[in-house]
């Protein structure tokens, strides 16, 4: 009889668990799946949170559509939970793709805002984080229109994912941002999003970088500058280098497609003087020649390499100068490099690193290697 008793016991326990259970049991179709969230300063309370929810309608061919809900609250959590009083659904955060922050909020400091998002167990830290170039962050979700996708946040997500072949905005997710905040010697940056009017439609555009001192927004870099920034940060995987070469018939623009890049920051310490050497090695290919100059032969190619190295160097040095004078924060990560390489020296310098940065001497040594000329082996000659 003993096994029967055990089976009975198990059945009773199971029955109890089943009948009282289902604590975390939630049906997938009951979830209000959040695609993205925009955070602004509230009018009545501290935060105004705009959430884009994926609305899945019934029917065979129904496509998911986007639904925007706005709510306010004293804390982030409060605001987010207040949503229940608006629609009765509890938001589900695991599939959220982007966080948009308004400049106003960002200038006051964003550590307090993202704390909830990092701490909660349902949210994920691989969500991408952006700064709105518009007045508020909410209007990006409200006014913006996706080109390919109905749901704007998903489109923003794929735009950021594909930045790797453009390199005009950094791809930063919440976790990267937190890590930059936490580590000394690197100041965080964030991509910038704008609404652009095109064909009377408000199209989203991600271009440029927002620069932070600690967690406070202090300025912006445009798309080209962002590319140079990414060169220093060794984040360029693909992209385009445009170079104008003097030719027979005026200038002859050439486009080099970047296939790979390796950047090494090298601290040179002598006595109490610190210098940095930035070694950049870019592998490229000629992808466009707007003219009949011969850049494929050795002579022309070496000249092209030299010229584009020079312009890359100039661009990067200008950027460093700009950051040193305008912002005075180390968004390049020179400090972290020093810390990793010479931890003892860093211990002495870390307190006034930002001051030191302003006068830091940086030498840029670019090396551009042209690997091939894509499909064509000659320039196109227009015959009479």
């Amino acid at each position, binding site marked *: *009889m003993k*096994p029967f008793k055990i089976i009975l016991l198990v059945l009773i326990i*199971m029955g109890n*668990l*089943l009948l009282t*259970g*289902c604590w*975390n*049991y*939630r*049906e*997938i*179709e009951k*979830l209000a*799946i959040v695609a993205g969230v925009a955070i602004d300063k509230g009018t009545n309370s501290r935060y105004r949170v705009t959430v884009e929810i*994926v609305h*899945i*309608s*019934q029917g065979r061919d*129904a496509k*998911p559509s986007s639904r925007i809900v706005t709510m306010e609250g004293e804390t982030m959590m409060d605001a987010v939970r207040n949503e229940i009083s608006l629609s009765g659904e509890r938001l*589900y955060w*695991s*599939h959220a*793709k982007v966080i948009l922050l308004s400049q106003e909020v960002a200038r006051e400091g964003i550590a307090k805002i993202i704390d909830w998002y990092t701490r909660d167990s*349902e949210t*994920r830290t691989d969500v991408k984080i952006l700064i709105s170039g518009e007045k508020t962050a909410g209007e990006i979700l409200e006014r913006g229109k996706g080109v390919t996708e109905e749901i704007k946040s*998903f489109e923003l997500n794929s735009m950021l994912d594909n930045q790797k072949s453009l390199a005009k905005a950094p791809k930063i997710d919440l976790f990267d941002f937190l890590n930059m905040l936490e580590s000394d010697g690197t100041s965080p940056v964030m991509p910038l999003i704008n609404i652009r009017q095109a064909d009377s439609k408000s199209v989203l555009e991600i271009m440029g970088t927002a620069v932070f001192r600690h967690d406070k927004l202090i300025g912006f870099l445009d798309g080209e500058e962002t590319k140079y920034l990414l060169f220093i940060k060794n984040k360029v995987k693909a992209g385009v280098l445009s170079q104008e070469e003097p030719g027979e018939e005026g200038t002859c623009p050439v486009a080099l497609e970047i296939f790979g890049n390796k950047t090494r920051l090298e601290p040179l310490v002598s006595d109490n003087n610190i210098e940095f050497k930035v070694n950049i090695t870019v592998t490229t290919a000629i992808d466009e020649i707007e003219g009949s100059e011969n850049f494929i032969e050795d002579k022309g190619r070496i000249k092209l390499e030299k010229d584009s190295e020079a312009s890359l160097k100039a661009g990067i040095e200008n950027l460093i100068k700009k950051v040193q004078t305008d912002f005075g924060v180390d968004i390049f990560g020179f400090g972290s490099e020093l810390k990793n390489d010479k931890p003892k020296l860093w211990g002495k310098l870390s307190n006034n690193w930002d001051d030191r940065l302003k006068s830091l001497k940086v030498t840029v040594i670019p090396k551009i290697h042209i690997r091939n000329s894509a499909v064509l082996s000659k320039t196109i000659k227009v015959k009479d």
Partner: protein
Amino acid sequence: MTLKKQNAVKENNKDNMAELNDLLLGSSLEENIALLRNIFTNDETLVFRRFQNRNIKAVKCCAVYFNGMIDPQIVNKDIIQPVLSSDLKDGIDIHNLPEELQYKVIASGNVNLENQLDQIVSSILYGNTLLLIENCEKALIISSNGWETRAITEPESEKVVRGPREGLTESIIMNITMIRRRIKDPDLKLKFREIGSKTHTRVCICYIENVASENILKELEKRLDQIDIDGIIDSGYIQELIRDAPFSPFETVGHTEKPDVVAAKLLEGRIAIISDCSPSVLTVPYIMIENSQSNEDYYNNFIYSSFNRFLRTISFVLAVSVPAVYLSIVTFHQEMLPTPLVLSISASKQGVPFPSFFSLLVMLLIFDLLREAATRMPTLIGQAVNIVGTLVLGQAAVEAKLVSAPVIIVTALSGILTLMNLKLIGAVIMIRFLFLILSSILGIYGYIFGVIAISLHLLSIRSFGVPYMLNVTTLKGHNWQDTFIRAPWWSMKLRPKIIGAKNLVRQRTKKTGGKKTG
């Protein structure tokens, strides 16, 4: 517990056979006839055929047999006719008539002298013909059994594309014939016994001496001896009476309807139990991995066979897991899915009123319902069931938004996977529900708990002392060759040691053969 009960039942219905134990035949023919008539009262099928020799009146006999149990040809031509017509004068000692008849007259293959009444009764019941002789205290028992048996056909449950089509039948002798035709060796031993106080079913333990383990044989005989039951209708009775882990849904005694499978298992050192009137032969010891072995594996190319075996093993795991994992992902761990999948599953479930757990449970039950209905149905009606099942329940339910399409897909997948391992079907169904319930409580963690519990159970049971699951750490070399894979024949030189076979060397084929060129 079961044995005790049977004992108690037996005490009450003390059968006649026991009372016959010490009785002997008398010398008067008529008295003996009356005695038998008395034993088999109310049985019209018992035939008493009296006859005399033409020449000697003293040779007065009576053939007793059951109509339908004998072969009339044998009785007429080989028993009655010789006694009737032969000229018994020459060289026949009238005073020693039974022996004389046995040795010189009756033209049957198997003739015995008997005076024990119980032996006589049981042999008549077995289809032998009894020859009573006037003034003689011994009777002749002549084997004459012959009844209609089913023709040898291919078993429905174990169809093969390649390999012998023969299937075992309900006749124990035929079955033994089929096995012996495959193993023609004096070492093939057959130990007979009778089980069942009413049915007197003949049961045969079949093994190859010097190959099968003696300990297992001893243990098997001990367990068979302990059986005390009124009847064995099918070998399934024996299977449950002698098995280890009686409460487990996993079979610890194997069964097959194919003689080639039996022969192969005997050669591996297993022991077969053949029971009369049952086309399935039991084999012990039986371990988990045998559930995913098929006889065809050994006849086909080994790479193809290994692949098939891998599919079967995986399909067992999937069949029990798919519904539970689906449920836990859809209701607990939505974050595990890629976003597009979340959206499409969510879209397909919009407007479905029932919770996922409930609809999965019901759909799985319906699948089992259909399966059971189709099994019992004649083939033609079975097709109708199929149509109803697929069209009405599947498509219409989705159209009517009673269940969501993913649930149907999961159910169908799990159902088909179940059918991949027919021998495990009972276990799969039970475990599937267990896992489903567990994962409705704790999501994927409930499922993992279930997996650990079932693994523990599988690891703890044994079949005749042989661990049901292979022991990974002690398993090496040749023991691997016939498990998750099927090694090529030229490399399987030894018998699997795990099942306790003795005399491990199995083949001494030179490897060179066509191997280098092929």
